[in-house]
């Protein structure tokens, strides 16, 4: 049929469905996949613009997420706000290094690592850096997979707030920092979803040619 393996499908006028991976001739493009009903397009629409927008949003939200308190802890009538970093420091002061490390990983290292990882992918695409592609793909898959774990701190706040409701004796209430932090998590997850790694490979030199 004149179709060659070993080069990209798009270069041979073939679209692979984003959802079920069925192959279609490119003429089907503004329609829907007959197998799964998903919209057909060669590459995810406006991938780079959307990823940049979501990435910048989450970078901005990272500030209030870390500066605003995520909860207010009141014990014996004395209340004090707690931030994410404050919570981690308090765990280390009590010698709970393992748990402190898990929370540090989920609420600081993973969101920042995700932002950096996505930035690397975006620059790779814009500058046409096609070196170390296998490592970059591995990193992108990690970023994609690990993103959901950043919700950990939000869930911890939810559990603490619902358990510790003892009036003046001890009371924990949720604060606006959680909204910003949840925003960071959602935006980075969406950013990883809107990015299309195929765009990078489109600029990769074909081995066969």
């Amino acid at each position, binding site marked *: 049929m004149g*179709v*060659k*393996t*070993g*080069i*990209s*499908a*798009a270069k*041979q006028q*073939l679209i*692979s469905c984003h*959802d*079920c*991976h*069925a*192959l*279609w*001739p490119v003429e089907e493009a503004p329609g829907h996949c007959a*197998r*799964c*009903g998903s919209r057909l397009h060669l590459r995810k629409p406006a991938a780079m613009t959307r990823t940049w927008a979501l990435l910048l949003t989450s970078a901005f939200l990272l500030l209030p997420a870390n500066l605003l308190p995520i909860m207010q802890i009141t*014990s014996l009538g004395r209340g004090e706000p707690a931030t994410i970093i404050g919570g981690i420091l308090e765990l280390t002061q009590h010698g*709970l290094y393992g*748990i402190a490390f*898990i929370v540090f990983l989920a609420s600081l290292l993973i969101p920042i690592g995700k932002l950096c990882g996505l930035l690397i992918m975006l620059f790779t695409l814009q500058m046409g850096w096609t070196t170390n592609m*296998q490592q970059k*793909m*591995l990193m992108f*898959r990690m970023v994609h997979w690990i993103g*959901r*774990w950043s*919700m*950990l*701190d*939000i*869930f*911890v*706040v*939810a*559990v*603490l*707030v*619902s*358990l*510790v*409701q*003892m009036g003046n*004796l*001890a009371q924990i*209430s*949720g*604060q606006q920092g*959680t*909204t910003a932090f*949840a925003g960071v998590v*959602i935006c980075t997850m969406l950013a990883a979803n809107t990015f299309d*790694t*195929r765009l990078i*490979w489109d600029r*990769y030199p074909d081995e066969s040619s």
Partner: protein
Amino acid sequence: MPTTHPDYRHLIACNECDLLLHRPVIRISQTARCPRCQSVLISARANSIERSLALACAGLILILPANLYPLLTLELLGQSRSETIFSSAMALFQDGLWGVSLLVLLFTILVPICKLCLLFWVSLGLQMRWSLPGLSFALRSYLHLDEWGMLEVYLVGVLVSVVKLAAMASLEPGPGLFCLAALILVTTLSSSMLDKDLFWARIEALQEPDQDGR
């Protein structure tokens, strides 16, 4: 008319780098990867449809007690308080954090329930060879919802809270916690047992006769 293009059935394009390849022939429990970017092309799983149906049923049964029974009970100076997944979302709502509370509700209750229902519907249709309405839509939605179900993250959140509170109060695990752990085992197994390629091929095979009829 068959649903996928017959000229291209022996081919497969890599999902992540768009490399066009001959569809590899693999045996059960083998995984074929793209030679250029190492992403998974297809992975065959033994009795994928049967097992998905069984796991979806188990999950639908477990999700009830996991949500209805308390996960943890805290006791402090004669007062005690229990929490379920729903009550923790509501506690945030009462503090005026309606956005976060909605997200907790979505990621830990609604998405897991939807995922199990969708998986049940798809695997039931394929197992019984019934051309149920919306099979392809259900599978597509299931795959898109997959990463937004966060039960295991919630469970780790409960464990972190236990460590944080252990110094100030006594905590009792409730029956809900064990059901939640079992439910996570079931959902994790079900996503590793799902052979997407096989599911799509079987959905296609079911669609063919009624396309002829039209």
